[in-house]
């Protein structure tokens, strides 16, 4: 019956562009009007607005704007909607991932459909609740009219409107069958939303809806797409960023049966074949001569030395990111100054599912269908429309599950190759990157160097803080105009650089390097490198003041109850201060990451012969505001500990002569089960809007390990990762620490 009501949420192209750009994506979005039909209309239920359909039997389907890559947002957002709708949770399911940004976009990103920065629950928190409250209000109004009673006399119970005075009840399913849905749903004020104390669904551990599909192979990832008549494709991308194929020797693959076409493109050669095995075999055999580009001369190890030199050369001020008080005076008057340099290396995402995309360009070349798992429906549709010089409504995107995102699937860099190959052979093509290609085309977390200084007065108070960050800009690679908008202060590279310590005089500055390395957000974003430097250094200052590291942080967070609570909780969980077994030590780190107050303690041991560090136990306490699905928060935090240990102990991309040295998972190693410590997580919910949970603990694991290493060895480990050869070199080094 009901045509979906016109959205009360007016599409704002300008807002959308700003939002998409703030994430670091450069592409033309074109006209965003009417990208797809309202997805709520595609089920048999009665659509009430764009966000929900309700069946006569009480089944409720909720629109799903966020990608599901294991973080649990598809269940969490449905919980938030169902809570405010007062729906009967077991009857709730979700619709396919939305592709219409004008309706379903994330307000945290100016209305783009994008799942990054742990901002799905946070960004949609008000929007989804207000939508759900409007639907509930409409159902109540319809019941009031039916019974001819005042709206004020009605209440709801799970999926039922109740008139207590006359003991009458109507289920949501019954009401949906007769309700007339106006063009605009009734408006509800934020002040009318349910208080935390009334929650029935939020705050209880809820089984994730996607999990049953992930134990029997039925979950469909991008890789699993099967389109009738499709061919298979893969790419051989230039090993050096930006180089073009100069000469492609087709004879080199003549012996491989089933090759359909070799397609030279801007910085890659596409191989289209009848089978994936043929495409992969041809990729190994294909001989290509690549053009020269400046990046050929780049090598990461000497560059890092230069980064450190620049960080130390304080005559160059850099761009001020934070400037509070008067740090110059604080340092002039200081009784003691503590100084150190930290570094972090490039990292690769190593998401389990290599990049893949299936595309079918139409015969006219002005439209396409695309099947894939992506963190940004908006980026994919925008990029495809720009490449085909067409309107976004000519691009149909079928979103699938993501076999890991972690930032790697936020950019549309795989789109041009797939469109190019499909166009060249006039067939749908499933393009799969080999793992080797995925590694070589890494979009890395930036390599960074840091110089930190703390000024301490006669009484032992920290009066000044200086932090100089030398790194390339992530957004300069992915969306250069965004760097200009931010006045040169890259929001991704600098994320997490602000400290949550009560220090009056601070100068935090950015010294941008321009080297041309391909970069992107990586789980934890800027906090991943910045917190390593900040929290390692905070420990050094505590040591210089002969104060216990936890007591030191508590002093610096005196007037912050949320910080104090997580610090004290984790210290208690870990038995901070207790005696440890021989050759074991604990290290601590704290920080606010994606607005979640987090503290971590790691217990490690060290094999002094091999330089290998082993983590035995980990404790994390966090305050995420309202904890929507507490079990998902615990699961995410366990994953953060494992991922965080992986990056501090094992992971490292090096670049020689402009190309990534690593090739597959044998030389880019990630944490395995035997590397996993016993993990204890305490979630401390507070009545604050929910904050991000996908990457809160990760940035604290590195510094906690480095700080534990100091306890064990009395040496500071200031270069991440703490791989065995570095550990051994530092242990041998008798210099000052």
């Amino acid at each position, binding site marked *: 019956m009901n045509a979906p009501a016109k959205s009360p949420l007016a599409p704002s192209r300008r807002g959308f562009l700003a939002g998409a750009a703030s994430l670091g994506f450069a592409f033309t979005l074109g006209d965003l009007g009417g990208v797809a039909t309202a997805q709520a209309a595609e089920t048999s239920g009665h659509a009430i607005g764009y966000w929900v359909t309700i069946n006569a039997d009480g089944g409720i389907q909720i629109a799903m704007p966020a990608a599901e*890559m*294991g*973080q*649990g947002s598809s269940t969490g957002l449905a919980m938030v909607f169902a809570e405010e709708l007062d729906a009967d949770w077991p009857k709730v399911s979700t619709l396919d991932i939305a592709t219409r940004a004008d309706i379903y976009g994330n307000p945290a990103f100016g209305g783009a459909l994008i799942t990054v920065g742990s901002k799905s629950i946070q960004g949609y928190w008000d929007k989804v609740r207000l939508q759900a409250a409007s639907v509930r209000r409409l159902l109540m109004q319809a019941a009031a009219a039916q019974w001819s009673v005042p709206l004020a006399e009605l209440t709801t119970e799970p999926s039922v409107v109740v008139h207590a005075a006359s003991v009458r009840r109507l289920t949501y399913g019954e009401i949906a069958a007769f309700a007339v849905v106006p063009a605009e749903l009734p408006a509800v004020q934020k002040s009318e939303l349910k208080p935390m104390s009334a929650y029935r669904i939020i705050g209880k551990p809820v*089984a*994730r809806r*996607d*999990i*049953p*599909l*992930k*134990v*029997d*192979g*039925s*979950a469909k*990832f991008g*890789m*699993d797409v*099967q389109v009738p008549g499709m061919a*298979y494709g893969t790419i051989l991308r230039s090993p050096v960023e930006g180089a073009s194929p100069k000469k492609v020797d087709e004879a080199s693959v003549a012996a491989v*049966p089933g090759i359909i076409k070799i397609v030279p493109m801007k910085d890659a050669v596409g191989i289209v074949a009848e*089978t*994936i*095995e*043929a495409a*992969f*075999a041809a990729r190994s055999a294909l001989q290509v001569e690549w053009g020269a580009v400046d990046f050929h001369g780049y090598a990461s190890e000497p560059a890092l030395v230069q980064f450190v030199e620049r960080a130390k050369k304080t005559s160059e001020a850099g761009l001020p990111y934070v400037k509070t008080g008067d740090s110059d005076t604080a340092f002039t008057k200081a009784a003691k100054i503590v100084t150190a340099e930290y570094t972090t290396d490039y990292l690769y995402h*190593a*998401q*389990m*599912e*290599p990049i893949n995309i299936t595309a079918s360009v139409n015969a006219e070349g002005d439209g396409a269908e695309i099947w894939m798992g992506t963190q940004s429906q908006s980026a994919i549709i925008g990029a495809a429309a720009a490449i085909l010089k067409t309107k976004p409504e000519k691009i149909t995107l079928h979103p699938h*599950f*993501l*076999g*890991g995102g*972690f930032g790697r699937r936020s950019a549309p860099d795989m789109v041009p190759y797939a469109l190019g190959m499909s166009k060249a052979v006039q067939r749908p093509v499933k393009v*799969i990157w*080999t*793992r080797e290609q995925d590694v070589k085309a890494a979009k890395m977390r930036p390599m960074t160097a840091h110089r930190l200084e703390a000024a301490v007065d006669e009484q032992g108070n920290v009066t000044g803080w200086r932090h100089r960050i030398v790194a390339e800009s992530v957004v300069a690679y992915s969306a250069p105009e965004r760097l200009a908008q931010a006045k040169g202060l890259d929001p991704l590279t600098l994320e997490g650089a602000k400290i949550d310590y009560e220090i009056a005089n601070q100068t935090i500055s950015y010294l941008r390097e321009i080297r041309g390395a391909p970069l992107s957000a990586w789980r934890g974003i800027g906090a991943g490198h910045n917190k390593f430097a900040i929290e390692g250094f905070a420990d050094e200052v505590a040591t210089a003041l002969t104060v216990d590291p936890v007591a030191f942080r508590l002093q610096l967070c005196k007037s912050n109850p949320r910080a104090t609570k997580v610090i004290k909780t984790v210290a208690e969980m870990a038995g901070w201060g207790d005696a440890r077994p021989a050759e074991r030590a604990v290290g601590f780190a704290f920080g606010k990451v994606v607005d979640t107050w987090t503290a971590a303690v790691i217990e490690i041991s060290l094999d002094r012969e091999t330089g290998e560090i082993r983590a035995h136990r980990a404790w994390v306490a966090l305050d995420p505001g309202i904890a929507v699905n507490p*079990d*998902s928060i615990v*699961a995410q935090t*366990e*994953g*953060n500990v*494992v*991922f965080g240990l*992986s990056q501090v102990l094992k992971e490292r991309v090096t670049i020689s002569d402009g190309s990534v040295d690593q090739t*597959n*998972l*044998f030389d880019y190693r*990630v*944490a*395995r*089960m*035997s590397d*996993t410590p016993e*993990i204890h997580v305490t979630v401390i919910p507070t009545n604050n809007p929910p904050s991000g949970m996908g990457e809160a603990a990760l940035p604290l694991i590195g510094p906690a390990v480095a700080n534990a290493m100091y306890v064990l060895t009395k040496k500071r480990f200031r270069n991440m990762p703490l791989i065995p050869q570095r550990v051994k070199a530092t242990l041998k080094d008798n210099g000052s620490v």
Partner: protein
Amino acid sequence: MMTVDFKINGKSVSISAEPDTPLLWVIREHLKLTGTKYGCGAGMCGACTVHINGRSARSCRAQLQDMAGKSVTTIEGLSAASDHPLQKAWIAEQTPQCGYCQSGQIMQAADLLQKNPHPTRDEIVRHMDGNICRCGTYPRIVRAIERAVKEG
């Protein structure tokens, strides 16, 4: 090109492809059983784990030409109604995150329990260490295996 007859999930199949075609692609793209995943193609991650003649194996390292007469089980054939004790335990422990590695994890774990119905924690870790989970679900994989051992 060669034609090879073997069994998959109890059914006889006859596949014509290049002799050195990885079993992984035969399963995923020729037979469209997409529960088995491609992770590295190099035996490093375990995403492609299946059972060959009842033992776990990396399908990316097995070739079509070696499959004649063999019997292959994939995640789709592990149980009739997705109710293998490991699958039930995996749900009870809310183990998967992105889920991409989990078919391989479950097939690897099923092989362990066949050989050793009451593994110690060390035995679990040793048996499972070749299977990467980038999302870091290892603690829940261990718990799920221990639950399956208990609840059978």
